[in-house]
């Protein structure tokens, strides 16, 4: 299976999983616009390679390895979308398809340079959250200031945005995205790195999120909360 095709499958499964919990063959087929038979075949291959757990007639879900890979591609996809729409001013309707083709050939170095040039954007033009990168950093200043980005080193635990936590779930802050003013503002309110927090509640319609930290509770604008990435405690999210 070509790498491009493999990555596309993983992306689709991630999307469907987030919506439905498990990716059914038929749903994948609809999403990828291919015949269900080819999906079954592809899932078998992905399963052999260790990217998905596949159970015939039930569907597939990503392994940790597969999820990591899918997230990485998604991140590139959305970064490219921001680039295409904000820098090159390509029509927003076309950026998705363009990005779909470009995402598979992007190197780590280019991805990092792109992220730096776009000033570590939080969301793609369609409003989906861009994942944190997998460099071993705790904030963006390392990339934004230095000429040589820090080496890539896979994080031990997957980072998830604080907004993706379930109400009541506890987590530890691992990464704050954005320039120093964002980081400083959050830090001064007690949201320092390695701090334990609890998501109290999410207001509907992307409203503010309420976070319990250091025995107090803060209501934080959704757009600001997008900058906070955490490692969930206890059972893994998703």
């Amino acid at each position, binding site marked *: 299976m070509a790498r491009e095709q493999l990555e596309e499958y993983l992306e689709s499964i991630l999307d469907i999983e987030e919506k439905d919990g498990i990716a059914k063959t038929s749903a994948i087929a609809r999403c990828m616009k291919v015949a269900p038979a080819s999906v079954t075949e592809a899932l078998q291959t992905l399963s052999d390679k260790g990217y998905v757990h596949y159970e015939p007639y039930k569907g597939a879900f990503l392994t940790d390895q597969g999820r990591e890979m899918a997230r990485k591609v998604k991140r590139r996809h959305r970064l490219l979308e921001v680039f295409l729409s904000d820098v090159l001013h390509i029509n927003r309707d076309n950026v998705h398809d363009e990005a779909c083709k470009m995402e598979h050939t992007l190197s780590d170095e280019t991805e990092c340079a792109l992220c730096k040039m776009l000033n570590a954007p939080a969301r793609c033009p369609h409003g989906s959250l861009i994942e944190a990168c997998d460099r071993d950093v705790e904030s963006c*200043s390392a990339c934004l200031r230095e000429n040589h980005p820090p080496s890539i080193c896979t994080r031990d635990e997957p980072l998830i945005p604080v907004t993706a936590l379930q109400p009541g779930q506890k987590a530890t802050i691992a990464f704050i995205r954005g320039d120093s003013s964002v980081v*400083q503002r959050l*830090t001064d*309110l007690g949201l320092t790195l390695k701090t334990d927090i609890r998501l109290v509640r999410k*207001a509907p319609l992307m409203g503010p999120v309420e976070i319990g930290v250091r025995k107090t509770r803060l209501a934080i604008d959704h757009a600001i909360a997008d900058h906070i990435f955490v490692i969930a405690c206890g059972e893994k999210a998703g």
Partner: protein
Amino acid sequence: MSGCRDCAGCCPAPGRPDDKREYVVALAGNANVGKSATFNQLTGVDQEIGNWPGKTVERAEGLLQYRGQRIRVIDLPGIYSISALSTEEQVSREFIAHDHPDVVVNIVDASALERNLFFTLQLTELESPMILAINQMDLAAQKGIRIDLEKLSGLLGVPVIPTIAIQGKGIVDLSDAIVSAVHERPKPHTIPYGKEVEDRIRKIMQLLPAGAGGYPPRWTAIKLLEGDPDTVWEVKKSSPDVASAAQAYARELEKIHGEPAGTVLSGERYHAAERMVSEVMEIHTPGDQEVSLTDRIDRLALHPVLGYFMLILTIGGLLIWTFIIGAWMSELITTFLAGIAPIQPLIKGTAADVIFNGAWTGFVAALTLIIPYVIPFYFILALIEDSGFLTRFSLMLDRGMHKMGLHGKAIIPLVLGFGCTVPACLSCRIIESPKQKFLAAFLVTLIPCSARTIVILGVVAAFVNIWWALALYLFDFLLIVILGRIAFRVLPGESVGMIMEMPDYHVPHLPGVLNQTWQRTKSLIWIVLPAYIAGSIAITAAYAMGFLEPINTLLSPVTVLLLGLPLMTGVVFVFGIIRKEMTILALAALFGTTVFSTIMTPAQLIVFALVTMLYVPCISTILALAQEFGWRRALGITVLETALAAGTGAVAIRVLTLFL
């Protein structure tokens, strides 16, 4: 070093008896920890209290006279940090550093000790004599929190006083501590941070020339490491090499930690605070099974459906209830005052008669606005605010406010605006970004305040029907949303998202609520009452001398041709600049009738109310806007809204006459 010592003018002579001197004590601390309550208890001066973070936006002053000492108490704005630079943070920082208060009383919330100590640590860096007042000890005790005060005092090197400010407990101890502290000046210990940080602070301190900038050297060194723009600029002027050396050290720190030096230091402070808390605090309830009252109420108040339902019910109820009570009380007061002297704005006669009548009418008009409408409104609002519900409303409305470029906190000025525009404009200070502050004030001037509501009710609801009155309201809200969106695009500057602390609910504290109501009403009495009386005299006099007739003619192109209203309304609108509901009085006086349907058609009545609602904000509002944003912007809003009123009025009269 000659000048100062030789001159007897400014420095107190060494032998001067001490008790003649006036001491200065500053209250500092996070927002919503009970600073204002402590201030009130200490000084007896009424300072607003509410369950709303960020209330004290200007520093308030009061006098504490205790054991023969005169102590000036300054209530600084509630802030979380003195590193980031909002106006409030700047006010506090400059006051502590430059005005050298004799003692800083740092008030902290016992149940949120860790976050509060972060700020305490920043204060210790400024090296002012300090007292720590641990407030809300009762609430902390309820949560099973026990704090070893002596140990904390030992760690910080300053006196630690427990208080329950709202009940006045511990205030005597605090006063005692203040009095002895102004003499003993207890300096806080230096709390060491991590080794990499401390090494660099020490190195920079060695480089700094003695007495640079008037700040303590350790503070200056820390600020240089953080890259604080003011400090860097200040140090660069005298010793550029120190500034660049400090920058190099900051880079080293950033290399080690992989985050900006400012964040590293904030992290260090929180780390130190955590350490301290773990030494002095014990929690006796199992932490996780607390489903507190606050949590239970929040499940309802922040429910995606029920929450909004409650919100609409509360705000709507607040408005309706106010105007039901208001109309009733207003009539009572008018009848009573009319018995003392007739209320007649326009008379001709002797100069004394004219002046008396003007003053009396203005006084009565102000009274019948403030007592029946504004005070009950502010009282109920203060109840909602003090209980903690208002913060929930702002959380629920945050998303909607984004559409107008504002955020949830703007709900407070907007709701206040239904009472009176003046205190609402002043309350816009709670919004951090200058752009959003101005935007909120602009929209507040369009909110139908109680005066405008009186006009809409008295003209449209009474003589057309209630539905047209409601339609006017709806149109106004629509206009606010549209103009908000446009202004958001047009105005330069940056919009900042909201980060707000969510306080626990509590049963409103009556003295506090009354205080808050009085505080807001007070700003009305200072600005609005004199403006009314003076304005009313001026206009009555102008009428008596026959100056008003030419105004009608002058304004007739707008009033008659554009808006299709009777000629006499020209003068009426001039009256309305003083106070909007004076338009009703003037209308009645000029036409000699209170049955307005006999002098204007329904369409004219609606347009009249519409124009009154939108044109020139009243003179008190213009003054308040000028005070907050300067004359250029105040007049800009005035001109814009007048044009808006004329424009919409002109369209409305032409459309309405078709089917009314």
